[in-house]
């Protein structure tokens, strides 16, 4: 059995840890962290290239385990009395809480699975067509709906689909925010201290450019180079230049260089 297959069988790092605890018949309240970390890392090391996100989730837990392990190695204060539960200072405390919580929901998920099975054995029948009994004046099935409802419903459905199919697509920036800031500062020098947002966008119909322009304005606001006003929601934004020269050099330039 390949390791990939093995990891696919787990719902995540917590699931893998619970599996290791069960397999080794360990006490969840007193996990031998050295042993468990070793076994856990064994799985991770042989992990083939899974999806980046999945890999990250398993690696974050590996880091957590290693950090706990190193804390466990620090000298401990003398134990005053026997304690059954882990004291909060124990480096394992938080992890154990998470494991217990996750295990609880895993059990509940099993219960739901049983119910799902039981329910799947029962079914009913298609209802009769009640419309045939509706009086002569058949109420229009579209009553109460507007075109906007149709449109928004479609929008939501499409949105769901797009989110489902979304692959992280990041286009190469055609223009950097820094360039745009400099361009805007140039405008103020030439056209005066006050400009409308819509006027700036007149030749910026590309979606990417609109967003870059907007980011540039936000950066300029943060640098206190401009102030923005808007009388009402969706009204045009008035941009007031506050002075300070035509270029942005010096300390800020690194932060806006994107």
């Amino acid at each position: 059995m390949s390791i990939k297959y093995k990891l696919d069988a787990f719902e995540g790092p917590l699931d893998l840890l619970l599996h290791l605890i069960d397999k080794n018949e360990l006490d969840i309240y007193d996990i031998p962290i050295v042993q468990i970390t070793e076994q856990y890392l064994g799985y991770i090391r042989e992990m083939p290239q899974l999806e980046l996100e999945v890999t990250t989730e398993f690696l974050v837990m590996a880091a957590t385990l290693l950090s706990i392990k190193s804390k466990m190695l620090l000298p401990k204060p003398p134990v005053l009395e026997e304690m059954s539960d882990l004291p909060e200072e124990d480096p394992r405390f938080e992890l154990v809480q998470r494991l217990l919580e996750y295990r609880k929901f895993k059990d509940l998920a099993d219960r739901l699975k049983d119910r799902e099975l039981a329910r799947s054995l029962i079914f009913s029948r298609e209802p009769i067509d009640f419309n045939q009994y509706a009086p002569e004046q058949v109420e229009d099935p579209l009553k109460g709906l507007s075109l906007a409802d149709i449109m928004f419903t479609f929008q939501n459905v499409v949105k769901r689909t797009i989110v489902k199919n979304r692959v992280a697509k990041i286009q190469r920036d055609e223009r950097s925010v820094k360039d745009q800031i400099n361009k805007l500062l140039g405008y103020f020098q030439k056209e005066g201290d006050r400009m409308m947002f819509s006027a700036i966008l007149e030749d910026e119909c590309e979606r990417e450019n609109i967003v870059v322009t907007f980011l540039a304005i936000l950066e300029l606001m943060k640098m206190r180079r401009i102030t923005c006003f808007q009388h009402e929601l969706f009204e045009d934004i008035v941009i007031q230049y506050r002075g300070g020269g035509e270029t942005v050099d010096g300390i800020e330039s690194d932060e806006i260089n994107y």
Partner: protein
Amino acid sequence: MESNQMKSIIEGLLFASGDEGLEAKQIAEALDVERSEVVKHLRELQQTYMVEQRGMQIVEWAGSFQMTTIPEHVSYFQKLAISPTRASLSQAALETLSIVAYRQPVTRADIEEIRGVNVDRAVHTLVAKGLIQDIGRADLIGRPILYGTTKQFLDYFGLGSIRELPDSSDWEDVVKLEQETKLLFERLDNRQLTIDDVNEK
């Protein structure tokens, strides 16, 4: 098999088989008993339903046995049909309708791909309500039905043609824009963190 148990199973089969009904032979095969025995039980069930004034009846029609409603209950079905608690269009139907409106002509499979769930029922409802209709066949394997909206749909919204629907491509763009903006803002967020760090020092 005990007689009572067999009657109970036959009753359940009739209930679940819906409008198509079942032939005595089919039931006999499922129960692995003689057809004559099944017929005997069916007759007894018919009798019991009548004598005990059950809410359904068992009818024999074209060789099939069916469990159906009772004509005397029609006035109550009418009340349910106009009951305000009966939503005229379910969410599933509304979503399906919107997809047909904007993407027509579409096949059932197209709709399922967008909604991610089986849409047989919703399509059936919309056809029954006269909001969408069969407008041809797709040039694909199996020649699936293509659906489009009906005149009733246009009339209700006072549209001359489907081209008068609010432009959906605008909306799809808005959705895409939202997502891209989000990505950019995520980048901006990261930048802001470093700026704050710098300022603090």
